[in-house]
């Protein structure tokens, strides 16, 4: 009975997310692309690299990339500390 309740809750969540996703723009036709169009038009000139994704990663959203490498670094540190502490 409990399992069924859980499954029911998950199904309700499924329905909600489904409706939310269906009310997005249809796949392949994004509606509001001002920011991305600006980047495609000006990214090459402003950063000097052909790959717009790279220019977004390392210039326009460099703080995110910094945070992401920090996450990797923190994870390595955490793994290291956990294993070292256990060794003692």
């Amino acid at each position, binding site marked *: 009975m409990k399992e069924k309740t859980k499954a029911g809750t998950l199904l309700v969540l499924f329905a*909600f*997310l489904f*409706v*939310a*996703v269906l*009310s*997005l*723009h249809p796949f392949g036709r*994004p*509606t*509001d*692309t*001002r*920011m*991305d169009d*600006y*980047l495609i038009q000006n990214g090459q000139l402003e950063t000097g690299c052909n790959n717009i994704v790279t220019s977004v990663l390392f*210039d*326009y*959203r*460099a*703080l*995110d990339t*910094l*945070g*992401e490498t*920090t*996450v990797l*670094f*923190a*994870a390595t*540190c*955490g*793994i*290291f*500390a*956990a294993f*070292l*502490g*256990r*060794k*003692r």
Partner: protein
Amino acid sequence: MILLEHAPALAIAVPLLAALATPLVSKAGKRIRNLWVILSLAFAEFVVIMLGRDVLAGNVHVYSVGASVPSLTSTGGFPIRIILVADAMSALVSLAAMSIALLAAIYSWRFMEEHHSLGLDKFYTLLLLLAAGMMGLSLTGDFFTLFVFIEVVSISSAGLIAFFSSGESFEAAFKYMVISATGSLLLLFGIGLLYGKYGMLNMAAIANEVSMQHSFLDIAALSLMVSALLLKSGSVPVHMWKPDAYQEAPAQVVIMMLTITLLSLYVMFRICFSVFSLVLPVTMGWLIVILGAMSVFVGVTMAMPQRNLKRLIGYAAVAEIGYVMLGAGTGLIAMPNVSGFAMQALSGGIFHMINDVLDLSLMLLAAGTVFYITRQQDINEVGGLAHKSGYLAVLFMISMLAIAGMPPMGGFASKLMIYESVYYFNPLLSIIGILGSIMLLAIFVKIFASVFLGVPYKGSVRQVPKSMMFAMCVLAFFILFFGIFPNLALDLLITPAAEALINPQAYIGGVV
């Protein structure tokens, strides 16, 4: 002046850079490493104080990361780059967070000394990363950066929970990791929904667009984000990770995790008040108020039978989060025009946020000190510690009175504001709050009686080191200060912050 101009970026960059250099610095020796950590955090604190002085006067400090001119935010009429926004509210929380981080670093000088020295540089690295992540959380004005910093914070705190390397600590860290990964992935899902609709990631820009057109998509994204942030803050139906993590982590890490829960509440308020203020359904405020009341009740009643001191404080922290949600949720119900009682509830909630950090931090540090001097966490085992270290008993008593909301501690003023104004909206909620306070006092009287009074503890009791005492004394001073001069704190810190929250146009206009 150049320091002030770059202050939002520096507040993130200084702890981050210090964290990355810590493993190299620690090759030079323990003392140098500890000094390095404390000095870098002190510098970051200085930067944050400067930023706060600038911002609490009422203006919004905007910093566009990587732009040729930092104040140049929107090139083509909308923001392209990541934008850091510091208004009075975010300056307030970043000030609190950085102070707590500094105190945690000072406290851990002696506390961590004997815990496996091999990995201690990792400990300090993760501590500094936690501080950097907290700064990022409180200062960011961009949804995706918010997600990234939440991940930074949760991964480094998971690493720190597991730091004592017992089986239980791994278990607690695993649970925390599962929960927080789920939460932040659903947060990212909500951010994706917003991006799909508006094509932007900046909070202020989205707020500008939201007011014109909204649909089920906004509601779904808002609910996903709010529930993920409630998970991070440990409100009631999803509070179970909190006592587990609090029990196992070192005390000074726990006070930073406590600050993180309040920061995620802050982010939730930011999203509700500043971004979705105009389209927010009325149910949102009621939901938060009801969850807050439930948090108070469940947290308090679960704290009652606990035996482990830090686990008990974890449940008490759930209850304290509930008070903040009660106050701020009442402000949220009256959102379009907040004044009178609603304004008082909101500022009471924000004031209680700060008091909550101070009170519970002092309590946790005292609990950590009890653990340090006796090596016991079970409150059944220890007793009569007041004979050995009276100052510790006094500090514990201050924190206990403050948590229970007794005058003249800081907790009283904020709780008074919350009770009064919530009573105006719904007396039942206020009664639950007062009942919670009474039971909190009962719980802590019990703990005080069994830990500090009675027959002296048989085992060996060590001296309390000076650095740990210093950190606790600073917290106690601020608790008493906010209790005796509540109006000073309100005028200087809280009211500007509350006004920054209820006035989304200033926030949006500062960026776009």
